[in-house]
């Protein structure tokens, strides 16, 4: 396979994952804005910083008003992370690697782009936002379904999956990073109304407000939520789950190419940091520090993958 093609597949799936994550963050933020208007501004600010988009945002707006933030995240052409920009880039990458995709995967991405372009043509009124966000998440599911259902499990598939999980790892780590203070086990805050809101937002941002209750019976505490997001291998958006997928896909690549690369070692080192028996050792060493290191290691790993598999010259 061409190095460029591997890179195109990887970036295509990073983009698709990012679009879906952005939609989920908007959903969580919008819920807070509706139910607790006093904290809405702060909430939107943290959504924007989770997406590392402060600079781009503040170049256009000077306040964090709901309608503005939502428009910026969904449609703003100068925001390279807006859903519309990302889907355009995912589709450009799909055109680039079209010969590596099944007709089903290509068509699902092309249709997603056609649908979003139409759907996001004009500013979305608040009343229609939930429906639009639901469509965005649903469509991402269709692309994923086409990938699962029709693609050969070969190197092409591995690069797609790598893109998905590198992006997801980064995204979940950023959500924790921005809200780490609400996850610290501090007795004076336990059970306060503020904490409950923050916790719910975090769980909603990773679509886990229900699965948390199933997985962690009754124990609605900061450490339990942190453990769920960081260490729980059953939770498909946790750091441990994403790291496991990255390790698996890189191992399959090493196997099919017959060569182990530096990125295999880096991924395994990253994963080993996430198999700590319980969350308290992480709290002892500092949650903020820990998450920051994970974000840094993920970025280094992503770079190494590009080098090892010759995405660019």
């Amino acid at each position, binding site marked *: 396979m061409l190095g460029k093609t591997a890179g195109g597949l990887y970036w295509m799936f990073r983009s698709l994952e990012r679009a879906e994550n952005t939609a989920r963050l908007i959903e969580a933020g919008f819920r807070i804005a509706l139910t607790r208007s006093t904290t809405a501004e702060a909430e939107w600010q943290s959504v924007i910083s989770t997406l590392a988009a402060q600079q781009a945002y503040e170049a256009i707006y000077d306040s964090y008003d709901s309608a503005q933030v939502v428009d910026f995240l969904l449609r703003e052409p100068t925001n390279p992370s807006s859903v519309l920009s990302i889907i355009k880039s995912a589709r450009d990458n799909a*055109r680039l690697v079209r010969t590596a995709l099944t007709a089903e995967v290509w068509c699902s991405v092309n249709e997603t782009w*056609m649908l979003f372009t139409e759907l996001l043509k004009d500013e979305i009124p608040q009343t229609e936002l939930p429906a639009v966000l639901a469509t965005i998440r649903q469509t991402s599911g269709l692309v994923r379904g086409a990938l699962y259902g029709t693609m050969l499990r070969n190197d092409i598939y591995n690069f797609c999956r790598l893109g998905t999980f590198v992006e997801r790892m980064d995204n979940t780590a950023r959500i924790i990073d921005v809200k780490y203070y609400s996850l610290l086990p501090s007795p004076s805050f336990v059970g306060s109304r503020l904490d409950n809101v923050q916790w719910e937002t975090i769980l909603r941002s990773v679509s886990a407000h229900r699965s948390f209750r199933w997985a962690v019976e009754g124990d609605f505490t900061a450490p339990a939520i942190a453990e769920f997001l960081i260490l729980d291998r059953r939770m498909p958006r946790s750091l441990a789950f994403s790291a496991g997928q990255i390790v698996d896909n890189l191992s399959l690549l090493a196997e099919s*190419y017959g060569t182990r690369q530096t990125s295999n070692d880096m991924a395994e080192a990253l994963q080993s940091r996430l198999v700590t028996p319980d969350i308290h050792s992480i709290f002892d060493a500092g949650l903020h520090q820990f998450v920051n290191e994970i974000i840094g290691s993920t970025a280094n790993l992503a770079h190494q993958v590009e080098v090892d598999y010759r995405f660019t010259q």
Partner: protein
Amino acid sequence: MYALDGQPRAPYAAYDAWFVKQNNERFAQKSKEAEAFFRRTGITFNVYGQHDAEERLIPFDLVPRIISSREWTRLSKGIEQRIYALNAFLHDIYNRQEILRAGIIPTELIAQNDAFLPQMLDFSPPGNIYTHIVGTDIVRTGEGDFYVLEDNARTPSGVSYMLENRETMLQMFPELFSTIPVQPVSDYPKNLRRSLETSAPLGCSGRPSVAILTPGIHNSAYYEHSFLADQMGVELVEGHDLRVVDGRIAMRTTKGYETIDVLYRRVDDEYLDPLTFNPTSMLGVPGIMDVYRAGNVTIANAPGTGVADDKAVYSYIPEIVKFYTGEPAILKNVETYRCSEPQALQYVLDNLADLVVKEVHGSGGYGMLVGPAATKQELSDFADKLRARPETYIAQPTLSLSTVPIFTESGLAPRHVDLRPFALVSAEGVSITSGGLTRVALTEGSLVVNSSQGGGTKDTWVLED
């Protein structure tokens, strides 16, 4: 489709019998389905200079254009003869130049031709083949009466539409194909791959590695490049995927550099090698011309083939065919006025309203004038251009092109068409796919069929005997 007495012409008889039983609503519905299919699968082309309409669909008409087996045989013989002559001409021009010595065509036509590449002198590509892929533009004016409009010997496009149009028709109207014996076109990608493989450099061992070189996703024909790569099962590469490694062309893969033996390039000569041609080109491969001349890679079509499909050289094709084959040309040339000649220029200026004027080096219908359809202002503006740079134009009379019906809201209506059959050339000979791309001028009375100028396409059926 219909003769003067209102009866369907013989090749259309079976189709007509089926068509009269269809109703307009079902047809209109099918037409919408076809469009949705094209859009969903991304069968689009890019139009230069239009930002908001970056990707467009070529309108597809559901009524096939049907050609009898007898007419097709004559047509394909004519194309084969012409392609043979073009390759002989190219080899001669770049080697012994007998045709210039014989005074058949003027030397300055070659020497001052931008498409002539001195880098190709004293070099013979494998099998002396220059034009591996040709898409000759043909018009029909009456029974068995074919004219060649252009030879398109550089990098002809449109073959993906020939294949997709047939695929669409098979999906929309499967019942037609079980009753009417239509020759298949689906072998083209397989034949193209085999044809390219046969043209590999002599020193190549094992199965030759083939790749398509595209300028990238913003090129107007990108869809076709990716379609052909996919159908042939070969890599689709861009300039930055390639480099010269140990005197061969190699592509950067996830496992390192791998050699390419045959490069089907869809990049123009000028951009092929920044070390030899345009130094600012990002689309080519630095040093590829040296590898090529050393016989370590085959480039299809060969650099410098443009000198044979130039619109000024075109006017000499009947002489060229005679010179290299000893026989008169089977297919007719459209009478062509070379505006570089003062007498011809005067004639063209006097009769501008009745002529089609084209740029010698132009393509795709850009920068041409269709006299009968032009306003007074357009005619006088064009006359100024002609006087300023006469040598860059040729003019031709408008032919009474035959029409074929298209489906419109009010039923069938006649429109002008042309035909681009696709030929493959290899050491095994010339092979022409039975069919081609029929382009249709969708506006009533219009003669311009180019997709960039609002033309559409149709499936083209060549009937079995």
